[in-house]
């Protein structure tokens, strides 16, 4: 039933002829975890996203690809309202999480961010011990029981495949970890608040190939239990780890489809140009 609007023109407003039926191959499994309807985004007067209609399936990886500055990060941040921090931003349209609009006035941003965790491009451990890094989220949510915190820390670190490397130095500074370890620490930290959705903004772009592979393995594991949205510049990576891929260009959603289909048989010329240009 899902209708996906497509635009052939980036600048001109869409017309009737450009709205096409979704190909049969797009899975429409139940209700989507996240859905944006007619969502536009503004930095002050500058519009960064135009009328985005996108569904994100539960317990699957959705990759967002596209050239730099096309609004992938903006879109990702609007899913847990991290854009609220930036002065003068504005959203129109709907962003539904489990069918409820997260921009509704009575939504508590703080509890929303606990449900929708985020991992940034640059790993940002807090200048504290490894333990305190992971325990920060549960602590500010009101968890003060030390033994329960220990359980949470161990569980999160195991989920992020970091436990074996750091279990003997939980009290040491997180700043002393390697880049790849820091990024997995950030993933563990995001998992500690027990989120339903994990947003990742180019989580491996600053890492060496070995660390990248570890992160990819991790994402593959995590999608059993979490809904993951990942922004990536690396198209092989998108092809390897994601079920669905969305292609953004200049603030618009050009195409969304099953990853395999989008990479082998894109319906839009822009998508094809971008993919082939990158693949060489």
């Amino acid at each position, binding site marked *: 039933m899902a209708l996906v609007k497509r635009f052939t023109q980036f600048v001109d407003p869409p017309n009737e002829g450009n709205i096409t039926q979704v190909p049969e191959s797009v899975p429409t499994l139940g209700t989507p975890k996240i859905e944006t309807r007619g969502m536009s985004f503004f930095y002050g007067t500058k519009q960064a996203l135009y009328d985005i209609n996108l569904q994100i399936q539960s317990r699957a990886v959705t990759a967002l690809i596209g050239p730099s500055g096309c609004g992938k990060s903006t879109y990702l941040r609007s899913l847990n309202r991290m854009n609220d921090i930036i002065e003068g931003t504005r959203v129109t349209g709907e962003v539904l999480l489990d069918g409820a609009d997260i921009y509704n006035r009575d939504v508590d941003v703080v509890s929303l961010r606990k449900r929708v965790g985020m991992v940034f491009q640059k790993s940002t451990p807090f200048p*504290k011990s490894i333990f305190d890094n992971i325990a920060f*989220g549960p602590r*500010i949510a009101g968890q003060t029981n030390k033994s329960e915190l220990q359980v949470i820390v161990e569980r999160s670190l195991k989920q992020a495949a970091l436990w074996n490397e750091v279990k003997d130095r939980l009290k040491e500074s997180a700043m002393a970890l390697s880049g790849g370890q820091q990024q997995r620490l950030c993933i563990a930290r995001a998992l500690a608040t027990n989120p339903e959705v994990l947003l990742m903004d180019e989580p491996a772009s600053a890492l060496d190939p070995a660390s990248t592979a570890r992160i990819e393995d991790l994402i593959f594991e995590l999608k059993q239990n979490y809904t993951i949205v990942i922004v990536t510049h690396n198209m092989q990576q998108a092809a390897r780890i994601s079920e669905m891929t969305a292609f953004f260009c200049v603030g618009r959603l050009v195409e969304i489809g099953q990853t395999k289909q989008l990479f082998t048989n894109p319906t839009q010329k822009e998508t094809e140009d971008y993919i082939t240009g990158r693949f060489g």
Partner: protein
Amino acid sequence: MKQRDDIYERRLIWRHRVGLCFEWLCRLATMGALAMLVLLMGSIFSSALSPGRGSGLAPVSLTEISKTHEVNGNLTYAVSKVVGGDFCFKSDPEEKIKSFSSADVRDGKVVFNHNGKRASPLFDLTVREISPGKEPIGKFKDVGPGHIPLECPVPDVHPPQPAKPWGWLTWNFLTHGNSDDPLQAGIMAGFWGSVWLVGLTGLMVVPTGVGAAVYLEEYAKPTSLTKFIQLNIANLAGVPSIVYGILGFTVFSRMFGAFDKQETIVSLTFLQGFGFKPIDIALPLGPVILSGACTLALLSLPVVIITSQETLRSIPASLRHAAYALGATKWQTIWHQVLPASLPGILTGVILSLSRAIGEAAPIAVIGVAAHLSFAPGRITGISDLVQNPDKLLRAPFDRFTALPTLVYSWVNEASPNFEHVAAAGIIVLLATLLTMNGTAIFIRQRFQKWNRW
């Protein structure tokens, strides 16, 4: 399930309230800082413009003395001559008058501060040297207005001393109060005075300065008012310290002359509820530790605000974003992440400005601090004394005091021989105190910086 929702709801409300409180506290700190700075300007103008009022602490002459002519609890008696060390009044059961020394005698008069008790004290005055075991060296009765003769023996004048291994920096020097005799003069009163001064200054300046910095950096919108405040704070960091001394004298020591006609005593009787003796505070405060600490707090406030702001600004935005993304509210982010991360920088600023404050002689001199005191603030003589009379801790801030730089300055100005050596020893103590403070700052910074490697 319903109950858990309720709990969660309540927690949300509380989190919101705590956040608001935090913001308002920070805003209050900014307003407090601003108000003090406005006071600064106001007091300078009021001092400059008021015609010939004179100092509220000027003594009245003996012939005028009567209950109505008492000023600020100061009674003036004429004394023929006092030479030598410190004296105290023996038969003074209520301890209305504590002690005086030859330095308190000026132009044949000595001003007694009887701690603000309204009535003229009536008692037998027996003078003896304060050192234990000394015989009384003079006796006189309170005969009301009149001349009180006081004969004291003139001590020998010491010849210049030969050099010793530790020179003048002896144990006696460290543990004794000031004296007219260079061999007896010690730095104890000044050292403890400075410790109290810096401690109270720190207590006042850290919450206000950091709070104001947090408000200006994290909460305030960049309106023209904010910019104006910012500009003012930057300017005030460069105001000479003597100007702050005038502020301290007018505002804290003299209290705008509001109590010139009749002194006022505020009695903190509620302390009895905690098992302490009530404390009487005479207004205006006069040159007590609290006045000095308030003055030095104002002096260091702009620097603390500016360095704290700079440190807060240097914390990367990514740290804040990471905290927000985990569901932290604004105040949780500031309190649990931003402030701890900026602690080394803030501490550095605080210690640097406090070590500037501890070395300041000018503002302390302006508020009227005397050099010739031989007791530590609150007359605390040691740990055991403190354990027995814990209320002395509360008394100390309202006690007269002297500070290290004041002592050094007075010794340098002393005419009699050998005082130059005493001054040199005092300077060494002052430097050692400063180095210890700075060393502590560096140590703390190193400890914390280990964690902060961006």
